């Protein structure tokens, strides 16, 4: 694939994520999606750029802001939207929901709801690579809000100690829910923590998918070749609230608009493509195919059968003899 085509494919992935999230927001308002809904809008270049740096045999694990990661790993737009709608055809059969998407065959280890709680799982996946003698890498995403909790520190401590093939990536979207980083952390550069754990570090802006691919790729290759873990801080911005219930009063609309104007990852990729000579007509045709895919996903989710009582019970224990007798 030429680099133009690669970038076009990445642009398309970002657009699908963007449009899926917008449709999810709409469905949420319509009452078709419940609970918490954390949108990835504004951060799409990170998931897409990461996937471009990985092999299919590598692993990815992330937080509750996970729809985009499921998609880039290979989960269909249909299965993502159906999961949000609580349907049996969802990527976790409607048992996980927005925060807990999983894709076993595509090595997507989930969507996790406890801040910092999943970081040690990534170290465990890295331990497995070392134990089995494979060169599979695990990339672990989390927000800057996770970097003050113990789970994060213990995970990095063990990964550094054992030189595990894990890349720890902080998506610093500047606000931990409604609290800016300067009110929660004394360090301005959170990769200052990396040397204490004996690991490499990197820090960069995450709105340009090409930059993300290049910089993450270097860390992934270091992990794969036995160079141990890396702590990366990617500075980004979420265009929507922390979740759908966030009124966003901790930042001004001017600030949000400025980020949208200068740092929209979809627009940046589009500008690259135009500079590379890709015709507007070709981009329009990609956009149209995205619309069709997303509309199809929403229709599929709407029409799918609801999550079942059977799966709710069936997956409590892998071993059915362990099921309690019931009340």
């Amino acid at each position, binding site marked *: 694939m030429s680099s133009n085509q690669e970038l076009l494919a990445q642009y398309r992935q970002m657009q699908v994520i963007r449009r899926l999230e917008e449709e999810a927001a709409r469905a949420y308002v319509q009452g078709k999606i419940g609970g918490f809904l954390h949108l990835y809008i504004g951060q799409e270049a990170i998931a897409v750029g990461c996937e471009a740096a990985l092999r299919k045999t590598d692993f990815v694990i992330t937080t509750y802001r996970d729809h985009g990661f499921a998609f880039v790993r290979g989960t269909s737009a249909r299965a993502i939207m159906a999961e949000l709608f609580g349907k049996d055809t969802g990527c976790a059969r409607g048992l996980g929901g927005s925060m807990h998407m*999983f894709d076993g065959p595509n090595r997507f280890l989930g969507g996790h709801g406890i801040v910092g709680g999943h970081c*040690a*799982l990534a170290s*465990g996946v890295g*331990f497995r690579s070392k*134990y*089995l003698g494979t060169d599979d890498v695990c990339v672990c995403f989390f927000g800057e809000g996770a970097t003050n909790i113990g789970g994060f520190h213990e995970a990095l401590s063990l990964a550094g100690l054992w030189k595990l093939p894990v890349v720890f990536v902080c998506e610093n979207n500047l606000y931990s829910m409604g609290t800016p980083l300067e009110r929660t952390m004394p360090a301005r550069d959170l990769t200052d923590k990396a040397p204490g754990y004996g690991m490499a570090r990197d820090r960069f802006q995450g709105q340009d998918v090409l930059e993300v691919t290049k910089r993450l790729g270097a860390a992934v290759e270091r992990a794969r070749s036995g160079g141990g873990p890396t702590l990366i801080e990617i500075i980004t911005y979420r265009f929507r609230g922390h979740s759908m219930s966030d009124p966003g009063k901790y930042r001004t609309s001017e600030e949000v608009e400025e980020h949208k104007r200068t740092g929209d990852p979809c627009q940046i990729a589009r500008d690259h493509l135009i500079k590379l000579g890709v015709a507007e007509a070709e981009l329009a045709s990609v956009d149209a195919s995205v619309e069709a895919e997303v509309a199809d996903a929403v229709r599929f989710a709407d029409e799918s059968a609801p999550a079942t009582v059977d799966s709710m019970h069936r997956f409590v224990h892998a071993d059915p003899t*362990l099921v309690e007798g019931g009340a």
Partner: protein
Amino acid sequence: MREITYRDALKEAMAEEMRRDPAVFVMGEEVGYYQGAYKVTRGLLEEFGPGRVVDTPIAEAGFAGVGVGAAMTGLRPVIEFMTWNFSLVAFDQIVNNAAKMYQMSAGQFRVPIVFRGPNASARQVGAQHSHAVEPFYTNVPGLAVAYPSTPRDAKGLLKTAIRSDDPVVFLEGETLYNVKGEVPDAAEDETIPFGKARIARTGKDVTVVTWGRPYGTVMELAETMAKEGIELEVVDPRTLRPLDHRTIVESVKKTNRCVVVHEHWAHGGPGAEIVDRVQREAFDHLDAPVLRATNLDVPMPYAAHLEQSVIVGADRIRAAISAVLYHS
């Protein structure tokens, strides 16, 4: 049959399973070079090497999570907590990750992991090292909770735990490690299924359900009381989740009286769960309310005489038995 200690029975179970399956490894604080804080892992490092007998820093949340991640991707970790007291800083990993992963992922990620270590009271180790944690973990769907009271059960249940595709909380009695008992040798490869209680002693007068440290006290008391003409039927659940309430209920239908004896605090927990089962399923057979003899409802004090007053002993157990028999 040969006799070995509860400690060595656990060690044999791990060693045999590690020989059988290269995916099984042991991880925890001091499990390797130090040979185990309670010497349960003695000799494993020499046989299996540091790649499979993995010493960790003091970071329970970290290495419990490492175990869960490794289990999700195909390994079979045995995670040792130096004591179950320390599992409380890893509670999130056990409850939110190990227990829920299989269902949250709709069966895409299994977590075949064993968390094991000593539980409940020891000897004057104070409030933070004497915790009986079974009420916390038995409350959680997705976990199995085993609690062997004899060397034979320790070995057979641990082998089953390691072979299980689900997360298992494996509670060992801290005061039971030196207890000796008959255990089949490796050639027999005995596994003991979860959810099957063992009738440790048959009797017609009172059913006593117990596990862990008080098990020995109850068995001795049963000998004494037999001489007085009172025949206790002692039921050891062996696993508290799943709980074999059928065996317990069948025993109560025969004796018509029941006392539950355990170390965990009396508010809720498997002790209360057993009482609930018995009153619901054997109501018409009961000749007395179901009573419990438990540790006192206080954090464990240090002073020896106070500690002895807190830990459930023969006096309180006998008093409960006398009460359900309406003997004054």
